[in-house]
Structures are given as C-alpha cells and as structure tokens.
C-alpha cells in the first residue's frame, strides 16, 4: 500500500509549534527551565530522554492540558491558552472508552457524518470489520490502532504521541511504525513522538531532540531516506549511538 491509498483530507498539512523561554515547575521541582524549541510545520520530531526528564510535561504544555509558569507556547503563531482543536494526543495507554464500541470510540466527538468517517479511518489503520467490537476483546496493538484512528478522524494538524507503542511487542511495534509513517507522509501533520526507544526515534523522525534535566542536550537531523529499513543501516546505527551518548 502506498501513501496515496489513504484518505487525505482537504485540510491536510501541519501547524508549526514554538516554545520560547518556557518554565515549568511542580513545587520545588523545576522540570523545564528556560526551554526553547521550534518545530516547523509538518516536521516529524522525536523527543528522547530519561524517565522523569520532563517529556510528558512538555507534551502536556503543547496540548494545552497544563499551563506553563512563564514563557510562551505557540501553535501556528498563536499562544496556546486551552485545548487546541487541531491538536490530538496518543497516550501510552489507548484510553478507549470500554462501554463504547470501536466505531463509537473513534467517533467520540460525534462530528457530522461521524460513522462514515470513523469507518473509513478504521480501514486506514487496518481495522476494517472490527467496528462493532468492544474494546476489551482487542489486542494491545489493535487498541492503539483504534486510538490512532480516533486521533486521525478529526483531521489534526498536530499529532502528539507519548510513548504510544511502549507496551507493544517488537513486531507489532514495527507494524505500527510503518502505519504511522505512511499516514504522516500522506497527511503531513506536525508530529511529536516521545519515546524511550532510540531506534524508534531514528526509524521515524526527521529530527531527534534529547531532553536532559529540563534542557535540550542534543538536537540532530535524521536525513535517511524513507521508507526506512529499521535494521542494519550503518548510518542509522551511528545516529543511534550519538543519541544514546547524549541521553
């Protein structure tokens, strides 16, 4: 399947994200201090870092789920004040509503024509025919696919992913990588992927940022050809080593 097999909405494309002099503390704990990051529209950025390094905090600020203590978080040139309708998140857990069927989960916002849109998006993520299942009967990978479909239905211009594949087995994870890469290539939304997995970051991202002690310790471009072979590209291995050294 090529990228063109996916449904591409009219409003395809991404929005730029910019953080400047952002500070965020929890009590005495300073999680992000004087933090600056600019993400151009449509870029696939991976954020890598140790546990507790502030990755999820960063994402919650961009999503508008939490507010920064000071500094500016901007999306498309405008300051983020609350939840932005064209920003969607994928969490480590799929967070499906157990008492709603798969299709109802995907169409959670019940927009116009939601059933048709949900059906089409489920087909895009490879879950055709599972519309009427309960979430509890799905596998972990299938649940994340439903969560991905739910995020895509509203045609987001920014997709934030907080370790969404962390709990999946290696094979399912590679499958999800391919799926995400194809959809991203077709739709062009700005993507921020948070991950512990350096190989995942190098396999998917245009650019990798290492977050350490609330600051950026490394910021490199990944200019490998797409679609990428996950294994044994010596350049990829070299990049992975450089990122690991910075973490």
């Amino acid at each position, binding site marked *: 399947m090529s990228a063109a097999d996916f449904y591409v909405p009219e409003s395809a494309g991404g929005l730029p994200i910019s953080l400047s002099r952002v500070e965020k503390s929890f009590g005495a704990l300073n999680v992000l201090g004087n933090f600056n990051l600019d993400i151009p529209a449509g870029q696939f950025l991976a954020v890598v870092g140790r546990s507790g390094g502030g990755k999820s905090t960063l994402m919650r600020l961009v999503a508008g789920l939490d507010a920064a203590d000071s500094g500016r978080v901007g999306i498309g040139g405008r300051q983020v004040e609350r939840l932005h309708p064209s920003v969607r998140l994928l969490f480590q857990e799929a967070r499906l509503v157990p*008492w*709603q069927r798969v299709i109802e989960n995907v169409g959670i916002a019940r927009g116009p024509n939601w059933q048709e849109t949900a059906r089409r998006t489920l087909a895009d993520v490879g879950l055709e025919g599972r519309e009427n299942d309960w979430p*509890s009967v799905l596998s972990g990978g299938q649940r994340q696919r439903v969560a991905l479909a739910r995020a895509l239905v509203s045609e987001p211009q920014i997709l934030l992913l907080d370790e969404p594949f962390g709990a999946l087995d290696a094979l399912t994870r590679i499958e999800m990588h391919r799926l995400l890469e194809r959809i991203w290539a077709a739709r062009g939304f700005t993507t921020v992927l948070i991950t512990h997995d350096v190989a995942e970051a190098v396999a998917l991202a245009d650019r990798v940022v290492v977050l350490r002690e609330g600051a950026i310790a490394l910021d490199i471009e990944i200019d490998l050809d797409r679609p990428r072979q996950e294994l044994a590209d010596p350049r990829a291995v070299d990049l992975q080593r450089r990122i690991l050294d910075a973490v």
Partner: protein
Amino acid sequence: MAETSVAGGYAAGESRKLNLKGLGSALAPWTLPIALLLLWEIASQTGLVNARLMPAPTKIAATFWRLLLDGSLFFHTLASTQRAVIGLVIGGGLGFVAGVLTGLWKPAETLLDSTLQMVRNIPHLALIPLVILWFGIDETAKIFLVSIGVFFPIYINTFYGVRTIDPQLVEMASVYGLDRKALVQRIILPGALPSILVGLRYALGFMWLTLIVAETISATSGIGYMTMNAREFLQTDVVLLGIIVYALLGKLADVATRAIEKRVLVWHPAYQVKPGSIK
C-alpha cells in the same frame, strides 16, 4: 471452562457425556433443599414435630392453593409489590439524583454529603414510631419507610461510581472536545453504572426488609399484614406461606437485576461470553 474450549475436537459420545454432566451439575444444588423438604414432611406427618407450629409442606401447598383461589394471596402480594415499587422509584430516584449531583458538583458534596452520611447511620426502622406519628398508618408511612431504606444504598453507590471514573478517560474526553453534557452522558453515567447496579441490588434487599417490618406493624393489606393476621388465629401455614412469598419476591427482584446487569453491562469483560464457553 478449559475442557470445553476445545469442544470442537470432541467426538459425539464425548459431548453427550458432557451434557449429562451438565445436567447433573444443574440439579446438584437442589438435592439438599429437596431432601430437607422430604424430611420435614415425614417429621410433620409422623408427629415428630408439632404440626400446629410447623405444618407439613403439603399443608402449606394446600393453603397456597386455597388463598390463590379466593384471590387473597394475589390481593396481598399486589398491595406489597405496589408499595415496594413506589418506594423504590421515589427513594431510588432521589438517591440517584443526589448521588450524581454530589459526585459531579463539589458544592453539592460539601452541602449534602456529610449530613447524609450522618443520617445514614440511623437505622431507618428506628423511625417507625415517629413515622406512625407523622403519617398515621396509611400508605404514606410505608412508602416513606421504603423510600428511606432504598435511598442510601443507591445514593452511596451512585456517588462512588461517579467519583471513581478513570480520570484519564475524562481527560481524554476533554482533549476530544466533549462538552459537559456529552461527558456525563457518554463517559460518567455509563462508567458509574456497574456501581449503581450494585446499589440497586442492596436497595432491593432493604426494600423487602423494610416492607416486612412496616407491614407487620401497621397495615390492612400486604403480605406482612396477612402473616400477622394469621398469627392471631394460629394459622401457622399462612405465616409460612407469607415467608415463602417474601423469599420468592426477593429472589425475583434479584433475578431481574441480574438480567438488567447482563443487558446493560455487555461491554464489561466479566459479562462477555467467550466463544467455546458454556452459557
């Protein structure tokens, strides 16, 4: 069940054996009650126990038939059921509304919850003398008592159900732009439902209990009245019949809630029938 999940591979004879085993295990719980009934009958017939105080099952069956034919059994059962249902609707409805309100809205919790938790500790049957003074012995008194009896289990479990909704789901819903109404309708109430149904089960127990006591104290109809009346004339068979009717009504209510649970909790893994398992 592990042994039946591979049932596809069994030969016909094997599956018949399984069916017999299924029948046997279906009947097993009835062995003891039937044996006890038989023993009771014999003891009563032979005069081993005083038939006046403990009439034989056959005698009770005859009484059942007699009261069924003259319509009084139906009349009293209907009277009791009516009170039960009206009380359940009023008390349960108020409990549900109060539970949702306090669960969702902090000021309501501050205002109501500690008071309700305090009142809850008063056994509602202790109110009977007061209730008789207030309402006399007419229907209002009994419906009032039943309402109070069912209010608390429904209130507490609704409140608990609403409060223990997974905050991650609520956060997800807000990210996806659900407004307050959609959030309550699609996330909070369905999520609280298992807990609310537990409350309903308890409430039904309290409902019959309250009714028995209230009817034996002051009533001119209902199963409780029927048994109290029979006691004055030493009609032990009618008393026992009344007790059995109460047991059956209680059982019926329980079966009904289970059926509701099975219907509305189809999404719940505990209620999903896996392919290959026995229904």
